[in-house]
């Protein structure tokens, strides 16, 4: 099976602190590959390192071509869509402006986005800052789905959202995954069960397990060991302990945006 993305010996640091250490895995050319792990183990940093949003070293190949020395915007232009953790929509811009900014293709897939997220069409003149969390997440995902990508990097899309919205987003993601391979960071085991075919488990900045998703989810002891939760525990109950202060490494934005 060919891989769309190969990550070899990837390390990343933020503010001089190593947050990802010698990570290697590959993403198959179809389907959803989920990145799992406890809070603060370096999942988000791995995604950011692939995109060049944090300082990184190692090899990253996109369809066999190295992208580990390219600036972020070039990597994205090669056809990598990114849905960041915490949405990061531009709050001062309208929904329509957010979408317009994201367009790279000559013929963006407006119809697809409008079909997946009809709510956004109705709110196109609304400022993104006034949207609800779920709507912002849809907008963030819509930005990535507008273009025909070779790979989607999706970071915790369901974080902190109500179950109904989680279902809606998962469906949209499933729809998207038919045409583009997805690397998905996710904590919600139900969503993983629904979408993922493979998993990569990260702990302490390293890859500790790779394999088919079903196999891992079937092994309750492994789930507990790697993720520190019971597989049968309702996924929404875990959300509250998300982002314990200090547990999360500083985000790349904090480091990047540090201003005099």
């Amino acid at each position, binding site marked *: 099976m060919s891989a769309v993305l190969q990550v070899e010996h990837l390390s990343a*640091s*933020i*503010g*001089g*602190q190593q947050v990802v250490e010698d990570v290697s895995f590959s993403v198959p050319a179809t389907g959803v590959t989920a990145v799992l792990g406890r809070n603060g183990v370096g999942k988000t940093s791995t995604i950011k390192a692939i995109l060049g949003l944090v*300082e990184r070293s190692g090899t990253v190949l996109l369809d066999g071509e190295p992208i580990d020395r390219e600036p972020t915007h070039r990597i994205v232009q090669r056809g990598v869509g990114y849905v960041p953790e915490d949405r990061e929509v531009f709050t001062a811009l309208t929904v329509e402006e957010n979408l317009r900014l994201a367009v790279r293709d000559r013929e963006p897939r407006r119809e697809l986005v409008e079909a997946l997220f009809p709510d956004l069409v109705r709110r196109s003149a609304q400022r993104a800052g006034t949207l609800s969390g779920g709507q912002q997440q849809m907008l963030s995902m819509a930005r990535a789905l507008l273009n025909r990508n070779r790979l989607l990097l999706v970071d915790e899309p369901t974080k902190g959202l109500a179950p109904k919205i989680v279902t809606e987003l998962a469906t949209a993601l499933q729809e998207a995954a038919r045409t583009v391979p997805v690397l998905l960071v996710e904590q919600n085991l139900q969503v993983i069960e629904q979408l993922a075919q493979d998993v990569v488990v990260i702990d302490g900045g390293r890859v500790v397990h790779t394999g088919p998703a079903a196999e891992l989810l079937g092994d309750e002891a492994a789930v507990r060991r790697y993720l520190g939760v019971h597989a049968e525990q309702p996924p929404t109950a875990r959300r509250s302990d998300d982002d314990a202060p*200090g547990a999360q490494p500083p985000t790349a934005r904090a*480091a990047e945006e*540090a*201003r*005099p």
Partner: protein
Amino acid sequence: MNTPTSTPTGAADPATTSDARPEAVRADDGAPGGAGATGPTAGRTGLRARLAAPPARARGAAPWVGAAVTAVVLAVLPLLDLRVPGVLPGPTYTPGTLHLLALCLLYGALALSYHLLYGVAGMLSFGHALYFAAGAYGLAVVLQRTDLPLLTGAALVLVGAVVLANLVGAISLRVTGVSFAMVTLAFAQAGNVVARRNIGGWSGGEEGVGLRTANVPDWLVGVADTRNVYWLALAVLAGVYVVVTWFQRSRAGHVVEATRENELRVRVIGQQPYLIRLLTFAVAGALAAVVGMAYLLLQSQAVPTISSADLTITLLVMVVLGGVGSRWGAVVGAVLYTLLDQRLSVFASSDLVQGLPAVLHVPLSEPLFTLGTLFVLVVLFMPGGLAGAAARLRQGRRRR
């Protein structure tokens, strides 16, 4: 008299001043990448450079021996007949040369006080000139208008400067980063306006205030006594150096340095970043005021330019030239700048420069053009300034 005694955490902690502390060593050495590491928001490059810094050199009394030897050499200069053509205007015992050297020493001391703000605490102030001017103007006005003896007057002015620094600091430190820079700049500008406009007839407008010598001891007054003023300047520099070193090694110094890197972590260990920053700001202001008073005795007048933003920018240039975070770098940067400024002015009016075609003669006749260009080049190509370059040299030699 001495603000640092109000340090809430008391005197220097002996356990942390030993040679086992890489942090203190780095501050002394100005490790490579110092400039990057010491801005108010040290970027990742700076931190990485710090992690990559060479291991701490074993050091005990060594830096003090070096400083003491330097001080002794400087102290005997007025008794010697040394000539350094091109650098000094004449033999070292002549009043003209001693005056220039004293100016170098005072700027060294002033740059050191700025180092405490910017190099140690990472506070990019554009208003440090305010406290320097407060010292010079304050003492000039006190001597002009009262019959207080010099030392009493100086003590009074110092108290005033400490109050001023605390007031301005208390407001400015409500914001950080660029806003802090702007607020300090604005306050200094206000001081500059007061000085220039002669509000209330105290500051003498553009002429400034002269030094009334009635209550100044005779040994500090005459041209022939320049060497006494020179020794005074040396004493001020030595005193400021000791205070700055001591402050850096005190608990407060460590905490403020930690605040620069990670404010949250400082909060977590139960310290108040705001108060410690304010303390640092006030200490730096008090030191600048002391230097300002010595400056008045040297120059015999206080003029509005010493309160301008340009003076603070000059200090920033000195500290960056020498290497941000390095004490001796700040002093060397200041001495180098002052000498260059003086010598370039002489060079500019020389026949050699005047005879050049306009393309060369126009820029070369402006010392600030040359100094500014030098500064830009250092920022672009020599991170860590002189101290950084010296550290790289040492490192290279050790590897061989």
